[in-house]
């Protein structure tokens, strides 16, 4: 037991802490980077989900919302809703906004928009604000439009605008639509008219694709969730979708929560990688202090004293790094929100979120503990003489107690990561992969050392020295391999993902996709539609299918509602409404893999053909039953066949295709794809809108542009997250170089004394890093390719089509960049005068 108390130990520790801090800069930088990243990601996700939760009423524009597809609520249904509180009714649909007046070649004649009809009670919460003047309930011939629509059609207040058979006057531009978040994904800019105005357009017809929403403001004190549940039970078979103020944007909330967890895991992985830097930094610091440690031991300090003295120093710097990381992490989200602009769905204000900060601090301190203890244990347990000898005879063993403590800290870290994860299996997989890659790279480092020691010694002295540097005592080969390997792997991963996404957008989609989608074609007008297209674009390929929307309510006797949100993994099609169709024949682009297609004139029990992947997800097959709610009516059908659907064609692909007898009687519209020479696009669009004022024409380019935008944002998020890991890798690289600085400084001075120039000395290090990079290139290419493949194919579910030229150039460029950073750290060594250095050697 030590004779020294903590006060005395602190006095000794403090004495050289001001000098010691310089030696512990790497520990500080690595911990700071990791904790700041985790704290920033956690705080941002908490801020957004908190905002969604606390402002749910305003985001939803109601306490309870009911959405119904294809139809409006019946009068008895409306009365039931009115009995609970104040009701506001809206109808939302896709519709073509058409310019009125002299055509302008620079301005499109029509634009796809989200048209919303609102009653006089709208909005129940929040305010619809216009760029000029206040919003008041609109007259039937007045319309307010989003700025994006005004810009595309070059409209100003007072200009006319046509929808279907009605012409409106623009009454103002929308500055803020209060329920924008609650509305979810939209395909075009918004326009708002009164309910009477909407009916004037003639677009709301039986079978047309629209959605009615009934927002309820409850009397004060009434529980929104309970009201929702009561309504859900009462109208269980009506096919309604419910939301309440506590869960205003469930998809967005889920997305933010998952994205936050995914980025947090990448941040945690970066922190684990930075742990290597922490370990190196502390080992290098303690190596510098070797003389002091030995002297303290000679003077009678016990192992415990030594541990506590340096634990105090390291603990102070680690605590400071964690505190600085937390401060920056807490302050960063407002900056990120400002920089992100419209990419983020909402703009939360500044607030301190204790939980993510506490979690980040715990991660940081655990990592610091795990990675500093081994070096400290070695210094603690070795006798004084062994410490003096350690420069030439490094001992990497640590005592059992320290090993157990490190293992306990690791378990605690993994436990914390899994306990705070929404998807523990996924988190375990990410952490496990990170651990595996680290172990692989560390193993590779050991292999490189072993190999370098055994290869024939080259005659050239600089090459000889470069190879010797890989295995000499105190060589940082493992850390260099981890840092370089990681950086190169990430460069390959990013290049693989980016080029595959580019290929997906630029090559696959345009080659296979039709030019236009047309929705809401009257079901009786198929022949007229074909004739209109043929007149403007002879030879155009037109594919027409019935279009309905339905919700799967049960499968094989299992009610979806009873799952209470715990859907089987990958069962996205159970969430909300999906497009459904019917067909007498097997649809184009589908391949029958089980069962048989029904006869053209099938009558009797309703049959359905299901996508085979969906069937696998639900664990059902041919012969099982499936119930779908279409237009408020539940239709039970027997699964007659399974199909393999080619989702890449961008044509009409449906998970559910019914036998005609099941749905033909339901009011519905038709949807069409048109494949033609691009030059006919405008003419066909004009002719269709003239002949069918109610149709929506969606140019494939618009969809591609939106998809590209989403992919771009996703790849930016990945690049941002990967940058943290690359930064951690670079910090480890700089740390490894700093740790071997003493040995390199010695060599460079002797070489300069013997007549070597600075470039020759620098060349030795370039050779060393170049050798490592060359050896790592193949490994990084394999690891990075595997990671990119996983993200592209398994996460995004896209085709794997990387541009190998770009990947290899990125790998080369990444190697040069990383080596450049490494060599830049060595430049100060070059300016050391030999005599000045020799005095210190």
């Amino acid at each position, binding site marked *: 037991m030590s004779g020294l108390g903590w006060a005395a130990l602190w006095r000794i520790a403090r004495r050289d802490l001001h000098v010691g801090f310089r030696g512990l800069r790497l520990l500080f930088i690595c911990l700071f980077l990791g904790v700041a990243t985790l704290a920033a990601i956690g705080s941002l996700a908490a801020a957004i989900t908190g905002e969604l939760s606390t402002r749910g009423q305003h985001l939803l524009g109601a306490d309870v919302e009911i959405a119904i597809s294809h139809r409006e609520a019946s009068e008895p249904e409306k009365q039931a809703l009115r009995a609970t509180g104040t009701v506001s009714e809206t109808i939302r649909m896709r519709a073509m906004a058409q310019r009125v007046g002299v055509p302008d070649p620079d301005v499109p004649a029509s634009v796809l928009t989200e048209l919303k009809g609102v009653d006089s009670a709208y909005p129940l919460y929040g305010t619809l604000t216009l760029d000029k003047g206040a919003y008041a309930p609109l007259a039937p011939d007045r319309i307010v439009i989003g700025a994006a629509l005004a810009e595309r059609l070059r409209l100003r207040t007072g200009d006319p605008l046509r929808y279907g058979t009605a012409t409106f006057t623009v009454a103002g531009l929308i500055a803020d639509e209060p329920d924008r978040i609650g509305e979810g994904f939209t395909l075009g800019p918004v326009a708002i008219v009164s309910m009477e105005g909407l009916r004037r357009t003639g677009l709301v017809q039986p079978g047309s694709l629209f959605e009615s929403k009934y927002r309820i403001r409850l009397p004060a004190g009434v529980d929104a969730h309970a009201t929702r549940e009561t309504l859900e039970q009462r109208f269980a078979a009506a096919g309604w979708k419910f939301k309440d103020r506590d869960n205003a944007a469930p998809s967005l909330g889920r997305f933010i929560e998952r994205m936050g967890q995914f980025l947090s895991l990448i941040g945690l992985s970066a922190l684990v990688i930075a742990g290597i830097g922490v370990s190196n930094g502390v080992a290098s610091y303690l190596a510098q202090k070797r003389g002091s440690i030995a002297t303290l031991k000679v003077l009678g300090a016990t192992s415990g004293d030594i541990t506590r003295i340096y634990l105090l120093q390291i603990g102070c710097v680690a605590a400071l790094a964690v505190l600085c990381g937390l401060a920056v992490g807490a302050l960063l989200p407002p900056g990120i929100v400002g920089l992100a602009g419209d990419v983020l769905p909402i703009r939360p204000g500044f607030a301190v979120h204790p939980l993510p900060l506490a979690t980040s601090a715990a991660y940081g301190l655990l990592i610091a503990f795990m990675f500093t203890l081994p070096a400290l244990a070695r210094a603690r347990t070795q006798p004084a003489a062994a410490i003096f000898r350690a420069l*030439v005879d490094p001992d990497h063993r640590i005592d059992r107690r320290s090993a157990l403590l490190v293992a306990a800290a690791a378990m605690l870290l993994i436990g914390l990561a899994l306990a705070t994860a929404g998807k523990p299996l996924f988190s375990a997989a990410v952490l496990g992969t990170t651990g595996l890659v680290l172990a692989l790279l560390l193993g590779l480092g050991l292999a490189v050392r072993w190999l370098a020691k055994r290869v024939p*010694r080259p*005659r*050239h*002295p600089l090459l*000889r*020295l470069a190879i*010797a*540097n890989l295995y*000499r*005592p105190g060589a940082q080969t493992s850390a260099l391999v981890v840092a370089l390997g990681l950086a190169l792997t990430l460069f390959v991963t990013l290049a693989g993902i980016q080029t595959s996404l580019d290929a997906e957008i630029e090559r696959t989609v345009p080659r296979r996709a039709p030019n236009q989608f047309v929705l809401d074609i009257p079901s009786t007008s198929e022949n007229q539609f074909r004739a209109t297209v043929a007149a403007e674009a002879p030879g155009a390929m037109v594919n027409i299918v019935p279009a309905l929307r339905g919700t799967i309510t049960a499968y094989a006797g299992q009610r979806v509602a009873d799952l209470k949100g715990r859907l089987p993994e990958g069962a996205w099609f159970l969430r909300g409404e999906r497009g459904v169709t019917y067909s007498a024949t097997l649809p184009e682009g589908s391949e029958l893999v089980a069962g048989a297609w029904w006869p053209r004139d099938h009558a009797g029990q309703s049959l359905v053909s299901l996508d085979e992947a969906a069937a696998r997800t639900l664990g059902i097959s041919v012969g099982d039953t499936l119930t779908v709610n279409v237009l408020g009516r539940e239709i039970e059908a027997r699964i007659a066949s399974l199909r393999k659907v080619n989702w890449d064609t961008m044509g009409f692909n449906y998970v559910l295709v019914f036998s005609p007898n099941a749905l033909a009687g339901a009011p519905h519209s038709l949807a069409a794809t048109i494949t033609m020479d691009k030059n006919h696009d405008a003419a066909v669009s004009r002719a269709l809108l003239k002949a069918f004022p109610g149709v929506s024409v969606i140019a494939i380019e618009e969809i591609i542009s939106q998809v590209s935008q989403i992919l771009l944002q996703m790849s930016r998020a990945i690049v941002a997250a990967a940058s943290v890991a690359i930064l951690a890798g670079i910090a480890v690289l700089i740390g490894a170089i700093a740790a071997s600085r003493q040995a390199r400084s*010695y*060599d460079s*001075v*002797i*070489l*300069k*004394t*013997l*007549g*070597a*120039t*600075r*470039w*020759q000395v620098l060349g030795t290090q370039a050779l060393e890093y170049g050798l490592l990079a060359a050896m790592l290139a193949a490994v990084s290419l394999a690891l990075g390719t595997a990671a990119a493949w996983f993200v592209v194919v398994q996460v995004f579910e896209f085709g794997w089509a990387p541009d190998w030229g770009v990947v290899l150039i990125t790998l080369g460029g990444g190697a040069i960049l990383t080596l450049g950073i490494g060599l830049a750290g060595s430049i100060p060594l070059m*300016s050391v*005068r*030999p*005599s*000045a250095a*020799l005095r210190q*050697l």
Partner: protein
Amino acid sequence: MHAPINAPSIAIQARNVTLSLGTGATKVGILHGVDIEIARGESLAILGPSGSGKSSLMALLSGLERASGGDILVDGVDYGALDEDALARARRGRIGIVLQSFHLLPTMTAIENVAVPLELAGGKDAFARARDELAAVGLGHRLDHYPAQLSGGEQQRVAIARAVVSRPSIIFADEPTGNLDAATGATIVDLLFARQLAASATLVIITHDPALAGRCRRIVEMRDGRIVTDRTA
């Protein structure tokens, strides 16, 4: 009276050389106007107590340090006009240096250490010459041993072999026996003089040992950064 600059008989010439280290309040004057000329083939000892500036003078004369003032010409080359790399090139094949702590490269064997100066100068038969030189210092049987596997005396022999292998015209030795026992030190000194004779080189030894200094033809004594005596034996 100084010989004219660049005189063929003069190996080293220093005029009014000063050296200061540090800046501002921490600036320390090390050498204060040193003048010295060393003839070709001469053996010269620079004697003095610790802190007298003798090692600093050697560092300046060998191009390891740059003077704060004055002129230094070595083999007719003006050191003042050279940058760090040019000084390194000027040392190649012209100057051999033996240091008190040997300063061998720990990751290279004895023969590799000796071959390095020749390789840096682009010599083709570096290893053959290194082998001969190590044999000449009595280490023909230790060619492939690493510095850590050699005794102090053996390490200093390797250092001497490394210093003379490129047949330099000038050899500097800074306290060559400082880290060795008396008997080994005497052997090393014998070896140093033997190699100097064999190479017809100028030898400059830095020492605080009067007995070692006494083996040189000329002794310069320094104190407080100045030459106080300059005598020929």
